[in-house]
């Protein structure tokens, strides 16, 4: 196990957000966390990187694990001038060759001189990915990394993740709304709603009653959903 939680409870203020979470990720595994809005997906990820303190329970990392974190859309204040190269060099300036390699792996070569706020949503997400790659991660954490991207943009981004994973062999934990992506690309799915409702192989989870009730997908809708696979998925957001 690269990272593991043991009976994790997290409160944000007075509110219990996560309860008795036991999960872990093996080397090279792709795990997707799905769940409705407010189900604690982002909080779980933030607990894994140490940004929120658990009320009780533990997060255990195996020693020496390098973690790359790609946050959910980043807003950079207009008053803060920041070139892509400078952004990539925070907090430590990497050797130029490494920086170029990471930019290439994330598919954003040639953007070094641009200002970060002038990038499109998709470009910025890839720059964030490139920055995470600088850590030479054993584990990549993606928090709804494709939020705000259109269908093509998000498909492209997931392709990039796949390519990166094949190159680095790193494990991936991603939080996603996009069920179609989840089903295709994950080794394991964790269905979260404050607690872990169910987890396992994508096919197993999607057939489970917990999943069905959480996402209110009956078979008819699912058929439509699969049929429209090459169209937009924005309407699925309303189902959650």
């Amino acid at each position: 196990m690269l990272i593991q939680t043991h009976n994790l409870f997290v409160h944000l203020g007075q509110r219990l957000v996560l309860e008795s979470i036991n999960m872990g990720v093996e080397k090279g595994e792709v795990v997707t966390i799905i769940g409705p809005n407010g189900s604690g997906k982002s909080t779980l990820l933030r607990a894994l990187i140490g940004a929120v303190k658990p009320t009780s329970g533990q997060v255990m990392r195996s020693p020496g694990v390098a973690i790359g974190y790609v946050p959910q859309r980043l807003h950079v204040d207009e008053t803060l001038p920041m070139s892509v190269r400078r952004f990539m060099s925070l907090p430590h300036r990497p050797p130029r060759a490494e920086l170029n390699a990471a930019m290439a792996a994330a598919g954003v070569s040639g953007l070094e001189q641009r200002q970060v706020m002038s990038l499109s949503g998709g470009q910025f997400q890839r720059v964030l990915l490139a920055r995470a790659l600088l850590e030479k991660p054993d584990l990549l954490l993606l928090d709804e990394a494709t939020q705000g991207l259109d269908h093509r943009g998000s498909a492209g981004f997931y392709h990039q993740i796949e390519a990166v994973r094949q190159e680095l062999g790193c494990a991936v934990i991603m939080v996603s709304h996009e069920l179609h992506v989840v089903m295709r690309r994950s080794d394991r799915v964790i269905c979260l709603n404050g607690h872990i409702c169910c987890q396992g192989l994508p096919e197993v989870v999607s057939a489970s009653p917990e999943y069905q009730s959480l996402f209110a997908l009956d078979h008819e809708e699912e058929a439509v959903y699969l049929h429209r696979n090459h169209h937009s998925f924005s309407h699925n957001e309303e189902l959650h």
Partner: protein
Amino acid sequence: MLDDFLVRAALAGLGVALAAAPLGCFIVWRRMAYFGDATAHAAVLGVALSLVLETPIFAGVLVVSLTMATLVSSLTGRGYAMDTLLGVMAHSSLAVGLVAVSFLDGIRIDLMAYLFGDILAVGKTDLAVIWGGAALVIALVTYRWSGLLLATLNPDLAHASGISPKREQLILTLALAVVVAVAIKVVGVLLIAAMLITPAATARPFCRTPESMAILAAIIGSSASLIGLKSAYEFDTPTGPTIVCTVALMFLFSSIFWRLNHHSRKKSSD
């Protein structure tokens, strides 16, 4: 050379401008302008306390500003919005300070000197305090620069890189209290925020990296201090406000430049 009061005034202005500029950038980037204002207003209470306890003004102001800043940081998110809390606490402590000063009979206190500064009365000891404080702030901000920047961009990214955003916030708070304490003699509590924010805001349109913005803000703040001092001498106007007027004028030109530049860029992309 230090015997000339104008030379001392110029050096004092430079010291404050150099320390305020890089810190002011963070205040602009993190949208903490009101926070700076509140900390400065609380300083009047510090002045009053120092006079009562017969401690150096610098120490009293530093302690009260720090307390104020820490109190606001820790109270935020417990029922009141940050700006409400700052508004209440800043003006209350200003008022309490003013009332407290009025109880101090025996000593004649020129309150105006603390509200608007009295740069022409800066002595050699003041100068040492100002440059000591400025050096401390510059060293602190330079040393923590990358961590501060990352925490400003996104607290979670900072966490993931092993940087605690809380600690960085504390460093900024400390630096802010020091700047307020050293600037009180130069521009006074009511105008400190202007020296923090305006040079940084003026520098923004001309910069592509955070470092260049901090350096340009320092240059702008320093030249505004010198030009303001000279103008105040020429026109016989109050020095602190004249310095702030100078930097405000620079800001005006800079924002006109930004407008025009933005406009032409938009046109060319159409």
